[in-house]
């Protein structure tokens, strides 16, 4: 991306560069920032992490409590506590500053580890236990609510699953469960887990999926799906008795605005902290970055390049955002979490 591309200025910290009239010190500072940014851009040969402001990094690789080993999914509760699952597999709770609060393990993990986390309307944690074809429900303290487990058998039938990737609950209490593997579909259930309908199949056409990795529901009740291996976002209106495709955008590639395996999606459809329009953030496994788009898919900005240094990412699996608008990125293969402000 060239610095003149649309949206560049939006993400650069405007409070520091656009203060008229410029004092000499202010000018020097902004020049330094600009040249550092330019330099970083030159070295990386790509838009660098200078476009968002890195605030904090935490995480040490390991297996003991408080450490991370390839963290795979993240979500956040109303108290801004982060819930992170890794491949040990522990579900661990951290504050936004990286302090370990508590943790627990899922009951079975011999076949594989969970890869999706979200909160339901009651504030309980929904865990997509991918390789056991089920959704587990935990209280925030880590108590398993066994009677609320959804699925558990492999198969193509209603209420059966292959690799479940995510589960979300809409305001009416209905559940949507996405899965990939042989079927690549989304199933909808009532609040008491009765099957309503399903849609999608394995493929590249509109309405089909290749690894729907993550879902989000916007204020209007539309379902946003990160269709990872199709490198696109699909939006459905599934409120009625039949799902309807509302829109879809996304193009495979490595350029700014293009996608390469988007693994997580965060919606900001109300406009955050004074931003007038809504935005959507996608975390790309293949491009090691987070991109920001308008709700209709116009590219706004991006953050992150591949690497191990601060502000660089290695195959991130998840993102989430707290009530103060801070973005948390699961820097999976660096076994850490990076927090930045847009």
């Amino acid at each position, binding site marked *: 991306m060239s610095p003149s591309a649309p949206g560049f200025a939006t993400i650069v910290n405007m409070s520091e560069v656009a203060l008229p009239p410029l004092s000499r010190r202010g000018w020097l500072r902004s020049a330094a920032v600009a040249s550092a940014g330019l330099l970083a851009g030159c070295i990386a040969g790509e838009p660098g992490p200078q476009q968002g402001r890195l605030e904090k990094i935490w995480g040490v690789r390991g297996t003991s409590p*408080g450490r991370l080993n390839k963290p795979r999914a993240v979500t956040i509760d109303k108290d801004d506590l982060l819930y992170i699952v890794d491949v040990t597999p522990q579900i661990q709770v951290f504050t936004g500053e*990286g302090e370990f609060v508590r943790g627990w393990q899922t009951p079975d993990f011999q076949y594989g580890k969970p890869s999706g986390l979200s909160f339901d309307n009651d504030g309980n944690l929904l865990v997509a236990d991918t390789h056991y074809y089920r959704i587990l429900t935990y209280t925030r303290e880590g108590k398993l609510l066994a009677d609320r487990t959804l699925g558990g058998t492999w198969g193509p039938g209603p209420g059966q699953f*292959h690799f479940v990737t995510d589960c979300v609950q809409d305001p009416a209490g209905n559940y949507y469960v996405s899965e990939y593997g042989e079927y690549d579909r989304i199933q909808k259930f009532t609040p008491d887990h009765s099957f309503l309908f399903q849609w999608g199949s394995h493929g590249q056409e509109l309405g089909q999926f*290749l*690894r729907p990795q993550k879902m989000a529901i916007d204020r209007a009740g539309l379902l946003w799906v990160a269709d990872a291996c199709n490198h696109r976002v699909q939006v459905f209106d599934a409120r009625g008795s039949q799902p309807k495709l509302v829109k879809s955008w996304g193009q495979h590639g490595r350029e700014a605005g293009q996608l390469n395996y988007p693994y997580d999606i965060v919606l900001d459809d109300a406009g955050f902290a004074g931003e007038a329009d809504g935005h959507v953030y996608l975390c790309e496994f293949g491009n090691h970055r987070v991109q920001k788009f308008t709700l209709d898919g116009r590219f706004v900005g991006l953050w992150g390049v591949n690497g191990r240094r601060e502000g660089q990412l290695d195959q991130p699996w998840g993102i989430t955002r707290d009530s103060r608008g801070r973005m948390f990125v699961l820097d999976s293969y660096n076994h850490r979490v990076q927090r930045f402000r847009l």
Partner: protein
Amino acid sequence: MFGLRIAFDHPWFLLLLLLVPVLWIFSFRSLSGLGPFRRIFALLFRTFVYTLLVFALAGVQLQKISDKVTVLYLLDQSESIPKLTREAMIQYVMKEVATHRHVGDLQSAAEDKAGVIVFGREATIEHPPFADEIRSVGQLESLFQLRTDATNIASALKLAQATFPEDTAKRIVIITDGNENLGDARTIAATMAEAGIGIDVVPIKLPSQQEIAVEKIALPPDIRRGQPIEARVVIENYTQASQANPTGEVKGRLRVIRRFRNQDELLGDKEHEVVLKPGKNVFNFEHIIDEPAAYTYRADFVPDDPAADVQLLNNSATAFTHVRGKGRVLLIEDWEFQREFEFLIASLGKQNIEVETMPSDRLFTSLAELQSFDCVVLANVPRASGGETDNKEASNFTDEQIAMLVRNTEQFGCGLVMIGGDRSFGAGGWANTELEKAMPVDFQIKNAKVKAVGALVMVMHASEIAQGNYWQKVIGAEALKVLGPSDYCGCLHWDNFTGGDSWLWKDGATGKGLAKVQDRQKIWIGKLDRMQPGDMPQFEPAMRVALNELIPNPASVKHMIMISDGDPSPPSNTILGQYKKNNIKVSTVAVGAHGPAESSLLQSIATATGGKYYRVANPKALPRIFQIEARRVARPLVKEDSKGIPLVVTDPAHEMIQNIGEGVPPVTGFVFTEVKENPLVEVLMRAKDIDPRNGTILAAWRYGAGKTVAFTSDAGRKWANNWTGWEGYDKTFSQMVRWAMRPVNEEGKFTISTDTKDGKVRVVVTALDKNDEFLNFLNMSAAGSGPDLQNIELNFRQEAPGRYVGEFTADQAGSYLLAVNTGQGNNMLLTGVTVPYSAEYREREENKALMTTLAALKPSGGQPGMLIEGEMKEGAIDRIVAAADTFRRTLQKAVSSQDFWPIFLLFAAGVFLADIFIRRVQVHFYWVAPALAGAFNRFLGRPQEEVRDERLERLRNRKAAVSNQLEERRAAARFEPTPDPAGFSEPRDIDAAIADASAGAGGEADRPRPQSQSAPATPQTEQDTYTERLLAAKKKAKRD
């Protein structure tokens, strides 16, 4: 302070600081002109520079002291320790580390580290030292590839020393019974103590004194057919008399089994009830050997009361002997196609050659087993076979078994014949093996005219299984080895950096990832070693990339192998259809699959494309599968022609094919090979009209002490159908086998006996000639193999007339085979000795002395280690953990040094400048007061007083004065020679005038002119012109 301190490399240079007072004395006088303050400063700077220089000369260093400790736990997993105790060790380590390790915070790894090394015969790292707790689920991971039949504490200590990180104090905690039977731990430990490494020992107490060991089963050295012989079983009873068992006797059953030709026979026809007295017990079993064959004897003792014997692994012993008869042949056939060679076996039988068949899934396991045969025939058997899901597990010839085959020929003189078929030679995946080296033909074709080319693409996605990357490297290399130089190979993996699927290597010229192997195998194996495959999200892009290169590829067989745990998104039917359409089969290997669903995905890919599906529970099976799969692209090496390929006999006089009659019938197929460029190779038969280099049908050569034969067509099942009815068939194959057989030589009389004691085998040969006279001064030597196929070489020395003795170390359990060259003709004696069990299984008591010595070593700069007593068993671990803190700070702290003298030197240069400055420049502070006043006024906002700069004023005045003077001079020099009031009339240079004018300050116009002052003595008139003065001077010079 802050864990930093200053040290010196050459502290003697610091004595130069004694010269500082001298510096003061001299400098104090010489600097007296500077005034008191400047003199003090100059002195101080000078002293400072000198001190810095002396420090730099002394090699000043900055040392960082670390308070961290790294503890490595060395777990003795050898068999002498009961299994439950061994399993409890890691539990202890986990608990100990969790309890006593000093922990930092999550932001930094500045905390104690802990690691685990397990050892038996050798040592391996289970957990590298890491700032974290030790977590282990169930068994130790590295145990499955560790040999536990010996204790080698020294190797574990060496490994630990090499593993320690630099910047911490180091401690080793050895958990052992101290019964080392390999290496010398004391020496290594002593050097480690010198290096400041502390050693604690957690002694393991061996539970009981109740132990029975079958020491050996002994057979007489010279066995003749039909004569009664004795097998003597020696059993040692170590049980000590106790209250429960006052006599120390142990009852039990003794069983001696004789095994030959895959049959077991109980000696004495029953198990014998025996009572073992404390000490040695000997039992004799008299019997007769009727048939010439290889015999293995095995004696087992089973105590009636299992508690009477702690260590069961030492309750059996084996012995081996063989009685030579007529020639015997071992025919190894493919277990998937058994009875393929019945016709050949019957034919050889008619020629009085006894053949024993062995299917390839039940192969020989030791060199000893091969000794009873004089020739081994590999009959259309591939290197690896089987392995599909519904069938049994894949089997293959391991590298060791291939080495045994080759060694059996090279060193022990056994014949080796390879008979062809579509699963043999290169088409059987034998390329690049030791076997290929032993054969008279190479299995790979370098001749470009023979278009026997295959293309193989490997897709790697197995990063999530345990040691996944390691296994992917192993299998990639195995597959690559099977391919020939003309074949194509490519390897696709998920590249973390680019976030896409990429080829591991690319051809420089074509830029293609599916490239010709040529001579690049080693380079590519190197690339495989460095490969870091990531977590592939979906199969489709990789399959598409591969297809784009597979379709235009010229190879006649194209194949793909995909290894995965099955969780990438599956490919579409479209792409699977394209594979099918282009006849490219995809074989899939499910390894560490997440569950039944994952396997079904991979299975469906294989089914859709016509490939095979393998599900692997144990990664050790992977190399075999990749050998089998890679063999598929070697198929084009087979040449088939249903019309018949006529043959040419090139050497009809050769012993192998003499008198087989005229007109060798044509065959309908054979396997391409390439004749070795070696004058020893004899090609006896080849296919007509095919490049003679590649059309070999029958070739032979000598290889070491033996002979090898390659027959590239088959024995009549498919390709040589015309041969079965041919009268020369029996003769050809029997002569072929007989030619290769081990020679039998009965000149001279040699008796050979062996004896094992203290881990050494003594071989005694007695040599007599035909007249029973001693044979002296023979140059006798022997070569052989141990259980691990390691080479044994020994020279005999003559100890008495006709008596020769040699000795070698045998520290491993198993069969040792020796071929003794008597130094007389071609006579070779074969002998074998079996070491029943490792010394490990003889240990009944812990070696307290060694453990105490190790713990008592005092590491330099620290305190001696501890013996941490306690019972190592589940439930009692807390007591050991409470007994001692292995992270205690009693060791020398780790110090890391950094040279600091260059900084001192630089600093000295800076201070030297300050020294010069203070001496040469007078600094005053007159400007301070006005500056302060100005600032004060500015602060109060008062108007600034115009401060007249006196220096400028003076300059201006001076300039004006000079200008005036110049003006006057010019005016005077131009015209109207107005009389000078001061009597000055001489015209002057303008510059000189300016110089004069500037020399003084103020009203120098009133001063007398220098010229007037220094007026010459000779009177000068005003009329004296310049010319006149010159002339006068000239005249004066002439006069002088």
